């Protein structure tokens, strides 16, 4: 079984929208992972809730300089930072370091990737770096379930 057997093909993408618009899209279409594509249709990043949360945090937290904030009051600054985030372009906020696999990548490798890295999705791209599909852990699990029942 390969990536092309598991991936979702009708993928909603964003290109130059604001984060606020992307969030509206996520809510409307009930999706959580938004690949970001450029004018040529190539995948340049992924926007996810986790990345949005981290983008609103101050750098000294996200870069690990302050590991523990359990003593801090609920940061009102965080809320304001988040509000400011919604008007920014998705390209500024997206995760530029994302995992890309080819449509031929075996299932076990995809499962291993999800186990080793704390990521929510894997982008499936063809040789021209064009978006072919998107895979989340849930997609792999359900597909494997089907396969297990059939066999």
């Amino acid at each position, binding site marked *: 079984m390969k990536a092309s057997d598991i991936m979702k093909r009708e993928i909603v993408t964003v290109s130059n929208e604001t984060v606020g618009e992307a969030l509206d899209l996520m809510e409307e279409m009930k999706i959580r992972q938004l690949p970001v594509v450029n004018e040529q249709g190539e995948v340049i990043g992924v926007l996810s809730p986790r990345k949005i949360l981290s983008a609103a945090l101050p750098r*000294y937290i996200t870069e690990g300089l302050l590991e523990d904030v359990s003593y801090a009051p609920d940061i009102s600054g965080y809320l304001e930072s988040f509000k400011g985030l919604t008007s920014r372009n998705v390209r500024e906020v997206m995760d530029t370091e994302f995992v890309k696999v080819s449509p031929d990548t075996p299932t076990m490798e995809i499962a291993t990737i999800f186990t080793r890295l704390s990521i929510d999705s894997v982008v499936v791209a063809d040789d021209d770096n064009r978006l072919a599909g998107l895979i989340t852990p849930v997609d792999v699990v359900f597909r494997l379930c089907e396969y297990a029942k059939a066999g």
Partner: protein
Amino acid sequence: MHLETGMLTASSIFIITYAVLMAEKFNRAVVTMLGATLLVFLGIVNQEELIEGVDFNTIGLLVGMMTIVLISQKTGMFQYLAIKSAKIAKGEPWWVLVSLGTVTAVLSALLDNVTTVLLTVPVTILIADELKLDPYPFLVFQIFASNIGGTATLIGDPPNIMIGSAVGLTFLDFVLNVGVIVPLIFIATLIPFRLIYGKRLKVAAEQKARIMEFREDEAIKDVPLLKKSLFVLGLVTLGFIFHGQLHLEAATIALFGAALLVLITNEDFHGTMEGIEWTTVFFFVGLFGIVAGLEKTGVIESLADWMIAATGGDMVTTSLAILWLSAVASAIVDNIPFVATMIPMIKDMAPAMGGEGAIMPLWWALSLGACLGGNGSIIGASANVIVAGISERSGHPIRFFKFFVIAFPMMLLSIVISTVYLYLRYLI
């Protein structure tokens, strides 16, 4: 000056090493280790002489204290202290600055400055964010506090460790001769600070209230570890206070404390060892080796002779010259190689100036100059660079000149105070 190839080679290697260090392109330890081993290859010193030149008391003290701090910091006690001090100030920005600075100064006196700022600066930025203030004044004052505080004790700053080790000075010697003027310098630094930043440090009651909402108890992650850490820290501090009477060197105290702490906390030794800044350790090893080369070839002796000739062997002139020279040098370049060279040089000057007992003012001058000089520019001390780095990564860069125009005059002020102190206490 009687020039020989040996002297030229050793001096060249020293100068090149210094220059490469300043360029900051390569790892510090690699640079000094290459320099030192090169001296052996070139036949300037042999390996035995090189190793003899390495002050293992300094290195043992550094490693011991690094270990203790590495384990203690897991308790969250540093963050606790920072938050507690902000709450004691009731969130009033000026007093938050003063109390954070005080905590930093005291910690810097007992522990190394770099770790102190690494642990307290991120919390400071968080506190400043909650106050909706630019963290700049808080961070700048913390830089000053760490250097000023570190001047007060034998273990507070590497120059003091090196001087104390080479001359046989105790913890109390430093406290009673150098430490006494430190509180005055600390307070004196606050005055221009108040004048410059006082107006900006005003916030609404709402912001102050948020500071009071911090829950410092949550910062403590591991109470048993905290008790053990405080126990060992207390033991080690007592050990330092009495190490003269106990006839124990500082490294023994520190290494004993470190081993004890690892034992009673069951900490993973390998993991702890990985956290030690070996770069700093080997930087010192290589540096001591290079200075050994300078000593063996007679470079140091020549420098000492030159200094005696220039000052006429007069104690007042020499002390003040060393104070001011060390301060300015410390502000511009890394003070550790500078101090490493000055120590044998001053020792060589002793006979011409009345013997070892008589030259004590020179040592205090070197200590004050080398430690306080670090406040002169953002590159003046390692702690400064660390704070600037954290600040930059938090989106608030500390620019060289902006810092310099405030810091250099303030550093000069502290040296003026030191001048008056040295004169009145030792040179009249």
